[in-house]
């Protein structure tokens, strides 16, 4: 009983937090935690303070905000029009930030994250009208967000490919890979426009190239993602996107095999073999980047495809993609241990970069299939699993009070267990109170 009293007191304390609002105690800490959870950049703001809410919405990605402002020009008719507008805007931006972070449309199964999206607490009648809309515009900003990335990306790609061909092979291959990684990690809702431009630039850069083989690689690679992405756009679901891209990749790999290139035929055969190994995976394109890494990553993708949830996949691909990019940028080949650690740090950094929508240039250029990494399928799958777990632990950190300072799984799990047990005991106490009154 002491624990429950203490927890009640804590709840009360949270209610008197520096939030300084007037609404009922009931929803206060709820709002606090869920708003906190929505996204780190969005500041905690009381719901009755529209100016503060406006500022908080500005703190999230500016492009997203401008987009949302245009959408919400025609709000639902209700009494507190402005109030709802800002609320929904904030909700949408919150859900959007989460969506971008995950790289999957809001309509996908983000059931866990949706209740955590909700920042504020408008009246129920208004809420019903307003809440369904954020799921729709959630789709758009992702594709929009890809726009600056992709166009800048295309420029860089063109620049890269036009470099003299000393390390042309490597550079082209690495450049080939990030496109696929970047595109696949974006998941569904991909626009066709940038892809066509992108394919065009890829082909153009190829024509400027020197060796035939490199041409083939780049052309194939650039064509693959564009085609697969087109298909994905028509299907409109990331899973299908990946599957279709698999088949396309396979066909392209076979085409590559069929085409006799004057260059290193053995190399090409190896690449296509590597790609053939990773047949199930859209990232079999990485086979062009390097064999062992291709197989390793292919194996990792295989494991990931075997799992159930879609956003997990896209999330995982995004994380691993960014991790691979950053890692490659840090170290070319070499030791396994430092690369694994840097990969983790780089992976998280990559995640944050994608969150802010202003990824540093290096993330896109230096995608390399993870050379020098532990290419054992087991360890790769474990890494993916660990990343997933750490992601969810972050959510839990926001939700459970007093967990932000704590690092490490064991202590956090302790806190979580204590919290859940205390909540359950509170429920028991309440039940008892109610039945006696």
């Amino acid at each position, binding site marked *: 009983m002491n624990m429950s009293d203490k927890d009640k007191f804590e709840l009360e304390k949270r209610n008197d937090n520096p939030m300084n609002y007037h609404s009922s105690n009931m929803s206060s800490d709820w709002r606090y935690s869920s708003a906190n959870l929505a996204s780190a950049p969005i500041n905690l703001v009381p719901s009755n303070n529209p100016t503060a809410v406006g500022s908080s919405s500005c703190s999230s990605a500016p492009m997203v905000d401008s987009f949302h402002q245009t959408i919400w020009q025609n709000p639902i008719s209700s009494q507190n029009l402005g109030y709802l507008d800002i609320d929904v805007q904030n909700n949408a931006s919150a859900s959007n930030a989460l969506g971008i972070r995950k790289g999957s449309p809001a309509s996908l199964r983000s059931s866990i994250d949706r209740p955590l999206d909700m920042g504020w607490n408008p009246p129920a009648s208004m809420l019903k009208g307003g809440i369904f809309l954020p799921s729709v515009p959630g789709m758009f900003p992702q594709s929009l967000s890809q726009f600056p990335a992709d166009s800048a990306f295309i420029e860089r790609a063109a620049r890269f490919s036009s470099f003299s061909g000393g390390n042309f092979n490597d550079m082209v291959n690495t450049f080939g890979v990030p496109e696929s990684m970047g595109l696949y990690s974006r998941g569904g809702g991909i626009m066709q426009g940038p892809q066509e431009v992108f394919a065009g630039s890829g082909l153009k850069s190829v024509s400027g190239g020197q060796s035939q083989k490199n041409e083939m690689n780049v052309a194939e690679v650039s064509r693959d993602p564009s085609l697969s992405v087109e298909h994905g756009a028509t299907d409109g679901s990331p899973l299908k996107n990946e599957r279709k891209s698999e088949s396309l990749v396979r066909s392209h790999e076979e085409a590559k095999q069929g085409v006799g290139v004057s260059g290193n035929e053995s190399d090409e055969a190896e690449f296509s073999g590597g790609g053939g190994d990773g047949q199930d995976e859209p990232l079999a394109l990485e086979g062009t980047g390097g064999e062992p890494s291709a197989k390793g990553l292919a194996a990792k993708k295989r494991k990931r495809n075997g799992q159930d949830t879609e956003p997990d996949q896209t999330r995982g691909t995004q994380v691993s993609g960014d991790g691979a990019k950053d890692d490659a940028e840090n170290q070319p080949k070499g030791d396994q241990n430092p690369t694994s650690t840097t990969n983790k740090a780089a992976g998280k950094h990559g995640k944050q970069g994608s969150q802010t929508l202003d990824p540093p240039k290096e993330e896109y250029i230096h995608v390399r299939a993870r050379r020098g990494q532990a290419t054992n399928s087991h360890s790769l799958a474990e890494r993916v699993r660990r990343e997933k777990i750490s992601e969810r632990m972050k959510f839990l950190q926001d939700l459970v009070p007093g967990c932000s300072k704590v690092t490490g799984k064991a202590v956090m799990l302790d806190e979580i267990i204590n919290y*859940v047990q205390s909540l359950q005991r509170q429920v028991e106490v309440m039940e008892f109170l109610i039945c006696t009154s």
Partner: protein
Amino acid sequence: MRSPSSLRQEFLKKWILGLQVCNSSKNMNVFERKKAIKLSADVAMASARNGKTCWSRALIVNASRNDNGKEFVEKILGSDYERQNKNSTMNRRTRCRKILKRSCTTIRKAMKRSTPSRPKVFAFSVAKKMIKKRTQLLKSVVPGGEFMDEVSLIEETLDYIISLRAQIDVMKSFANATEIENRKKDRQW
């Protein structure tokens, strides 16, 4: 889209419905009343998720194990609940997971026998044991947690925490309301 207020409203509706059902059977004993309240609260909380989460399904299954519970659940959820539970195909999943776990543990045990005696690895193994203990604890706390792998376990705890909070909020306001009403009644007399 689940917002906290809609979750609370749903929970409240179903809870009140359950309480009405219980009152019709006229339990005057305190303990029975408490049981009824708890049961109806559990079922209401679980049904607010519509069978999407593992813990809600497990909760409903637990509630419907007693005979009283079964009737109760049927009344509240209607005949849909069986369909919901069956759609989830929980049994198959849990069986597959158990088999997987058994095979994995045997493999891990075989690998563990050849553990090197370096201090670093020792520290790792200690940490792993700690984490394992705690995950087992968490699994015992969260309903239906024994059948889940770590990743989904964390998701389930997230959801569970959210709904517990909503439940507590609703019950608090409910208790306040009843208290106020009782005071008014007392004043009248």
